[in-house]
């Protein structure tokens, strides 16, 4: 089943030359793909277009079989497709870990009674048992990353978009993330510069440059 389809997307940031003129991309359920590419190729932009944080100037964004245009269309999309930001500090804004994770759940209208259980469950999923009362801005970089991931996973998305998830992780935490991702039964797209990491968590790696996706093997050696 096709989940994400981008068709002839045209996109430019205000006042700059077009980043995409006719970009097309397709992603189906069950896939786990890694995307590599040079700086400024538009990898983050690509992910943000998929969840409607950026809107294309032309072309079609079809998610779960329906064309998506305005904020209301994307509200449902964002619930089912979780995006992990490049910098966890952008994502964490609540003082404690439990409130951070509760934020998304409360937005979904999940009853307060169920929250403690759900929070506990998702924290143990990312290996941060007992972190409920910890203060988010006093956590280490790696812990922040995992809390941000937990806050996305708590909403039970069907697809995960990860934007350079290993940027601030040491080898041990990277290994932890590998284990977490391999244990999940989710489809995901991972953008990263870390080929080693991508090989461990994805089934295919694409090289993204000049609006085109090519298998990595075809590009490098």
């Amino acid at each position: 089943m096709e989940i994400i389809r981008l068709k002839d997307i045209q996109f430019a940031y205000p006042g700059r030359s077009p980043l995409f003129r006719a970009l097309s991309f397709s992603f189906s359920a069950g896939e786990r793909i890694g995307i590599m590419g040079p700086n400024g190729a538009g990898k983050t932009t690509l992910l943000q277009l998929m969840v409607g944080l950026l809107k294309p100037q032309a072309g079609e964004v079809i998610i779960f079989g329906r064309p998506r245009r305005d904020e209301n269309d994307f509200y449902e999309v964002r619930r089912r497709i979780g995006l992990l930001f490049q910098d966890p500090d952008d994502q964490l804004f609540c003082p404690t870990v439990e409130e951070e994770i509760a934020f998304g759940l409360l937005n979904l209208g999940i009853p307060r009674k169920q929250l403690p259980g759900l929070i506990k469950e998702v924290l143990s999923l990312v290996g941060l048992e007992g972190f409920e009362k910890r203060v988010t801005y006093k956590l280490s970089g790696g812990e922040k990353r995992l809390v941000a991931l937990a806050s996305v996973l708590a909403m039970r998305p069907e697809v995960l978009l990860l934007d350079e998830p290993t940027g601030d992780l040491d080898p041990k935490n990277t290994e932890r993330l590998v284990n977490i991702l391999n244990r999940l039964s989710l489809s995901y797209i991972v953008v990263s510069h870390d080929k080693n990491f991508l090989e461990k968590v994805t089934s295919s790696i694409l090289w993204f440059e000049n609006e085109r996706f090519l298998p990595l093997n075809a590009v490098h050696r």
Partner: protein
Amino acid sequence: MFEESLAEGRSFLHQLDPRVKVVVAFSYAIIVALSSHLLSLIWAGLFVGFLFVLAQLEPRRVLRQVLVANYFILLLVIVLPFTYPGKVLYSVGPLSLTKEGAIYALHIFLKSNLILTCLVLLLSTSSVFTIAHALHHLHVSEKLVQLIFFSFRYVHVIHREYQKLMAAIKLRGFVPRTNLHTYKTYAYLVSSLLIKSYDRSERVYKAMLCRGFKGVFPTYKHFKMQRKDKLFALGAAFYLIFLILWAF
């Protein structure tokens, strides 16, 4: 710098319902600010002393926070006695100290310190997030609450950004002097901070949208008004009425 170290504790004041704290602190501040008798300020001081006992915090840590604000009123308190018209008590050359000016300065000094100490004791003993929740429950405008909360949360981030930039500037041999180069460097620093914080606020907003944010702040923990909260509120109400009678 922006740590909420005073909020960590288990005293009576720490556990008091934040709604009661906000209302009492706000009323106290207004009454003290408007009171016109020196004697009422002594009564007001009694309350601060009482709060000190309830908070069980090291007085030095509290007073250090209050001291910072005194830099702002210092100038006023020094200049006022010499510039206010009234009965001259003392003359040094062209300067003359007036009785009315001295009393006025004393009023300002006492009032601001009393109000600040009371605010620090009542509000800093809760986390900012709890205070934000309390404001929500007191039906303060949603926009205002979000403004207060995010200002606090991101002042911390911007401060760290500032330290990073400042370190980078110093590493390249920058020494502040009174010259154009220095002013220009500071101007660049400020503008870069502004742009960076704008960018960040946009990313934060996007991250919130990704988690289903629709403009309302859902509160996770609810407070419950307990017996001791009601008793404190009642006692404080009687005391504040008493203070009003003395104040005017």
